């Protein structure tokens, strides 16, 4: 699925195993603040998203991607590019 809604849904699935505290996942859930995911785990998550959609998500994009919604936007942009 390569539309925004489909991408968002799949990102939620990819994050679920990294969310042992079962924080509610929504567009504005933040990785560092809400999910308390460390930077190494975030980089692993990026790798799995790259493989999922066959895209390149350079690590230097990460500082601008604080929430799940922002990541979904970035992936959508890269997929439709």
């Amino acid at each position, binding site marked *: 699925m390569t539309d925004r809604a489909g991408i968002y849904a799949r990102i939620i699935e990819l994050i679920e195993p990294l969310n042992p505290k079962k924080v509610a996942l929504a567009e504005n859930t933040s990785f560092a603040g809400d999910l308390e995911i460390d930077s190494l785990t975030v980089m692993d998550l990026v790798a799995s998203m790259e493989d999922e959609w066959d*895209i390149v998500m*350079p690590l*230097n994009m990460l500082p601008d991607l604080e929430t799940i919604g922002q990541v979904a936007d970035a992936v959508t942009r890269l997929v439709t590019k």
Partner: protein
Amino acid sequence: MSDLFSKFDPLISERAGVLAKGVRDPFAIVMQQVKSPTVAVIDGRDTILLGTYNYMGMTFDADVIAAGETALRDFGAGTTGSRVLNGTYQGHKECEEALKDFYGMEHAIVFSTGYLANLGMVSTLAGKGDYIILDADSHASIYDGCYLGNADIVRFKHNSAEDLEKRLRRLPPEAGKLVILEGVYSMLGDIAPLKELVGIAKAHGAMVLVDEAHGMGFFGEHGRGVYEAAGVADDVDFVVGTFSKSVGTVGGFCVSNHPKFEILRLVCRPYTFTASLPPAVVACAATSIRKLMHAGEKRQRLWEMSRKLHGGLLARGFRLATETCESAIVSVLMPDQETTVRMWQAMLELGVYVNMSRPPATPAGVFLLRCSLCAEHSAAQLEIVLERFGQAAAMVGLFETAVEVAAE
């Protein structure tokens, strides 16, 4: 007004929690006296050093010390300047000549530390629109070089040729690419499959930089590093290294055959905008590097000691980060932070210093007691070390804890 230090509160309280249990701070060791490459006085006690990366034991080599003393007397305590202004002395050029001879390369540039060498090379080589493709377990200095520069950063799974290939294939063919690898990875002591990785990088038109900080002196025919042992010297564009391990002093460098290499002296900010190494340091380094060209006996000894420690720890039931002895780093896998710190302290009290390593410095969240060997370690010292490991493990109940963790 908000306190800028608030962001460190979680780490401050985690440390306080560990120290409250009565253990001493593993990151605040003071060497009161250093007696040899393998023995120092800590807390007033003679302690065997098993975590210093002083692989070839050059810190107290008589020729190295003599060269340093002469340079200190003749050229003074420091250069007070950048390499590109008043900070290049004859000794800096002699040190670069020694590196060119050691590596059989056309160009060598000496930085003030190994950290600065990676910071400078990585941030300068790849610019806007270029790609850096780095191993996930790369050293902090490589990651920091990425953040200082403007290239797009792509990370591949540690030592995975398949993952590197997949990520290179996604990049625009015409874009500039720099693949960054390390010969020996310093946390687990594992080595990279450089033949495969370098081959893939070249097939995709990338330039290759290999950090040989932990391989210099005892891998390959001339001791140049893992890349030499892997037979890929002709395909490696840049080799980065350090003086603070096998060479036995401090400093960093890069060697290359690239015809335009010398321009880096003017465009590489971590080279240009810092003071050069003191005359005594470059004199020590040059002498040590030249001696390392003929250190066959030491190399052999270092490997012998490393295998002995690796095999001895396995035989005593410890879990190690590598199945076989791959380098002069032997890392013991530990179950959790508390057991690691307690065991580290028990070792220290028994007169053996090892490194405690914890996430995020370590990959995959592992806790380690990391040992590195020195060619000057004696067989008797190694016997003591193995015995102390057994005693310390019993003191902290390591094997009971390990069984519980495994059973979970």
